[in-house]
């Protein structure tokens, strides 16, 4: 009786270890492993051990059959090994930073044209979409890298993982030290266009043009919005002129971003900033208004854009502090 139990435990172990091995090596490994286990057990029994516990201990000593099977098969015991892990992390970071905000903003813009959504639904929808996008990005890239890890030879490795080069080292002070001319010109032109559009809209666009901003907005608010935009221009030019951001300039830009966000969101939600867009659109272009605008969605969109500006300002402050600390 003891014999049959003993054979069965060893059989089960050998079968578990070798069942996933390729047919050309599996049976050979099974034959050798069975012999090894039996011989070890016999030695232990000869040393005075009880056969059942000798078999148990021998198999325990060989450890997890799946781990042993991977050792025999030369298959990795990890999903993404050290050869690919840094490349994967770099790719995931890049994709998350680029794709998640675009997806969220696109979603919010799309929902602006459906009136039924309230604040909670829009924020909830945006959060869900951000989460789903992130999960998809991480999952699919991990899957691809895991497949490559298992199937690519040294040749594939060379193609996928570029050899690291010291010239690629980023200068942590770069972002803080230099405001590039391109960045400055872009920011100034964009903001000046925005100011011009605001002034034009608030002074009344007349017949034939699309009235987006409500000309009835109190003059004080109009001045405040334009002033906040102008602060951005001044601060960006100042940073470029002195050759980089410093704490006060970045702080002003942070305050301006937060203030713009708060003011614009409040004006949108209190229905002071925008006209009745579908009606205006219909009157201007002579098309029947069969769409609606969701103010909460517009507000969330504004909050995301201003939030992004604020984060940029915070990063500038952090980079400045770091480069000064060195």
């Amino acid at each position, binding site marked *: 009786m003891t014999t049959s139990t003993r054979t069965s435990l060893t059989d089960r172990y050998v079968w578990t270890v070798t069942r996933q091995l390729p047919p050309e*090596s599996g049976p*050979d*490994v099974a*034959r*050798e*492993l069975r*012999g*090894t286990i*039996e*011989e*070890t057990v016999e030695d232990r029994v000869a040393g005075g051990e009880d056969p059942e516990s000798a078999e148990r201990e021998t198999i325990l*000593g*060989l*450890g997890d059959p799946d*781990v*042993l099977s991977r*050792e*025999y098969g*030369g298959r990795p015991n990890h999903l993404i090994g050290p050869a690919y892990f840094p490349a994967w992390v770099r790719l995931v970071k890049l994709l998350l930073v680029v794709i998640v905000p675009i997806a969220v903003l696109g979603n919010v813009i799309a929902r602006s044209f459906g009136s039924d959504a309230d604040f909670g639904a829009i924020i909830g929808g945006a959060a869900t979409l951000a989460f789903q996008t992130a999960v998809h990005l991480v999952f699919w890239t991990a899957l691809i890298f895991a497949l490559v890890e298992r199937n690519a030879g040294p040749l594939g490795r060379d193609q996928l993982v570029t050899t690291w080069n010291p010239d690629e080292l980023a200068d942590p002070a770069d972002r803080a030290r230099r405001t590039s001319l391109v960045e400055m010109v872009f920011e100034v032109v964009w903001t000046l266009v925005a100011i011009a559009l605001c002034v034009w809209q608030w002074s009344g666009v007349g017949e034939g043009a699309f009235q987006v901003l409500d000309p009835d907005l109190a003059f004080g608010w109009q001045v405040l919005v334009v002033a906040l935009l102008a602060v951005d221009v001044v601060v960006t030019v100042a940073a470029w002129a002195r050759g980089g951001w410093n704490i006060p300039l970045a702080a002003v830009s942070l305050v301006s971003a937060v203030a713009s966000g708060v003011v614009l969101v409040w004006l949108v939600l209190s229905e002071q900033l925008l006209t009745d867009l579908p009606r205006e659109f219909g009157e201007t272009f002579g098309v029947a208004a069969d769409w609606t605008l969701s103010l909460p969605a517009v507000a969330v969109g504004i909050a995301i854009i201003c939030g992004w500006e604020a984060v940029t300002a915070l990063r500038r402050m952090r980079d400045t502090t770091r480069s000064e600390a060195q």
Partner: protein
Amino acid sequence: MDEELLAGHLQELRRGTVVLACLATLEQPHYGYALLETLDAAGFAVDGNTLYPLLRRLEKQGLLTSEWNTDEARPRKFYRTSPAGADLRAHLMTQWRSLNAAVEALNGDK
């Protein structure tokens, strides 16, 4: 001293020596379990779940050759160092001696 820390570093230190010990011992053909016992007696503590797959790997790399011996009641797979394995063994041994000398020299400074 922290037991786990010590065990981890000892394992790192011993890792490569098992290959060298295998290539040297297998100048005489051995089967897996006998090799394990021989290495154990010689002072190379190695687990079966490390040694048995290692033998397959070394064989795949052409450093060992193997042959089933079915003369006895229990068939056994015998491994033996190939000429390429002997070559590698000589290289590893040279490296080991120079490392040993270097470590000894470190000790001499103390």
